[in-house]
């Protein structure tokens, strides 16, 4: 049982890392805390579902189209809403939060809840690892999670666009003097974050089903991982993903499933109260607290 818990904790950690990567990317580059993140995640899942069911497209095509549409939605959100309140962190939070709320509540109103609202798994096989049955989908989560983390690292360190992203994140004004357009990169950063949310939805939703409430849970999980790891720090996301992933799975097994969510919420509160910049975030002492 212990070994099985370990295996599932590892998988859970990768789920959390996948969920948090997009939120972290957006915040790390343009400083926008995208509270519509969970809504974009749910929206892309519903879109894939609708395209498969209503237009009977194959899974890969509908997933690709819905990832593209989610990226466009993120870009539009930045261009027409966030750009106007740029720099006012709280207006940004209220604006993104209400956009997310509106999207999720529309889906709740449509009543699309149930087991038939899900995406197909890549492959139905499963096999034994350390005394626990693990299906192919969960293995895929781990592999794709690893690939995305590696891909993002390569992207931000070796491509011109990725380097521009990091430039804007480090010092916006200096980046401007080098001819990097911060408005255009802001659009791209929110769009890429939304795209990562859609990718995560495509891989993770087959393990469960799509529901509007999922949007709030995803937002809280992404927030938990990013806050504990340090907002905007990719290394922090990975470490925090493992911390929360293991903590959740072990509370679930040894204390009770009611307490799973409380663990991550309590972890956020503790980190915010003690070290708001997180485990690996850059210290910005007077900005975050006085």
């Amino acid at each position, binding site marked *: 049982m212990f070994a099985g818990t370990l295996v599932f904790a590892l998988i859970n950690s990768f789920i959390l890392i996948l969920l948090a990567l997009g939120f972290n990317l957006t915040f790390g580059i343009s400083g926008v*805390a995208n509270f519509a993140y969970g809504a974009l995640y749910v929206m892309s899942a519903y879109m894939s579902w609708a395209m498969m069911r209503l237009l009977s497209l194959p899974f890969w095509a509908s997933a690709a189209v819905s990832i593209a549409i989610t990226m466009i939605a993120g870009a539009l959100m930045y261009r027409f*809403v966030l750009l*106007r*309140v740029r720099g006012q*962190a*709280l*207006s940004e*939070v*209220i*604006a993104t*939060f*209400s*956009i*997310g*709320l*509106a999207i999720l*509540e*529309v889906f*709740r*109103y449509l009543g699309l809840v149930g087991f038939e609202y899900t995406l197909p798994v890549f492959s139905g096989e499963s096999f034994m690892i350390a005394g626990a049955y693990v299906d192919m989908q969960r293995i895929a989560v781990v592999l794709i999670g690893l690939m995305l983390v590696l891909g993002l690292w390569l992207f931000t360190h070796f491509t011109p666009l990725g380097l521009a992203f990091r430039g804007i994140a480090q010092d916006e004004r200096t980046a401007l003097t080098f001819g990097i357009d911060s408005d255009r990169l802001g659009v791209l950063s929110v769009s890429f974050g939304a795209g990562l949310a859609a990718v995560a939805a495509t891989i993770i939703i087959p393990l469960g089903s799509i529901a509007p409430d999922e949007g709030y849970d995803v937002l*809280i999980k992404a*927030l938990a991982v990013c*806050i504990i790891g340090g907002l905007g720090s990719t290394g922090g996301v990975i470490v925090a993903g493992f911390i929360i992933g293991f903590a959740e799975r072990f509370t679930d097994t040894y204390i*009770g499933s*009611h*307490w799973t*969510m*409380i663990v991550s*919420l*309590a972890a*956020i*509160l503790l980190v*915010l*109260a003690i070290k*708001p910049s997180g485990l690996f975030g850059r210290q910005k002492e*007077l*900005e*975050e*607290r*006085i």
Partner: protein
Amino acid sequence: MKKRRERIDRGIKVRSEDIYALCSWREMLYLAGPRVLPAAVFLLLPLFLGVYWQKVMLSVAVFALLAMSWDMLAQSGMISLGQALFFGMGAYVSGVLNFYFGLPPWITIPLATALGGALCTIVLLPVLRLRGIYFSMVTLIIPLMLVRIIEATKIFGGTEGLSGMTPLPAGLIEVYLVTGVFLAVLFGLRRLMETDYGLVLKGIRDNDRSVTNAGINIYWFKTQALFISSAIGAFAGAFMTHIYMFVGMPVFALDYSILPIAAAVVGGVGTTAGAALGAVLLVPLSEALRGIGGLRIVMYGLFLVVFIVAVPEGLFDYIQRKYHQMERWVEIDK
């Protein structure tokens, strides 16, 4: 006879802001109108309304209280995303006092106001130093966590909650209790924020470090602001417990966090009266749109986005400006 147009407020402002020497009834009316008229409407309207619209007025007043308490915190530089914490704390304190100890509403409501306010302040005390978005995230998370804790530990009735509270005397008494408190809070807070005390709070919002430099303990001021604001929210919660005769997990729901913010943003942040105006507009509107059910929250969300992007100063500011810019024709001498 030649005429020119003259701003009404100029002379009145000069004379009324320092020394009180208004010359005519018209000028006194100009000053008192915007203050007396809403108060009169709130005091007289319940007499003419049916039972259903009295209930609507009741929730207008409750949400206006929550919105004003949000606005007061915002004016002190703390943006809360979880007014439901204040509301729910007050609701649970009065519910528990009534359910387990059998205290009557006229004891539980004042007690829950003070105790709920104190509890919220104590809960938020460790994060008082946090600024901006970090404080907001804490307030967003605490109500969510309390819901899960109640669910997991099954205290105070767990998921089913406590029911069978003593109701308030029905009819006009409950309406006048809450509208009375609403008017007192509205005018009290507006007065408070104009005094030196309020100036310090606004100073903390604008530049906390320079307020510290002036030798003022900003943590003590923030604690007091937090207590005032959460006590107002706790009153609203305690009152609603006795109206619904029920307290349970829904008191920590997102509605109680999002509607006050929507009201304050629509009405205008930083004016107190704007928050009340927003609630007066939004709550009856959502009541009229009861048929669309869940889409109401969608509507609040869209309202919030449109106002925060297009009209960030809110409606109250606009109305106030137009009122001050009112002109009249006067004859030109000679």
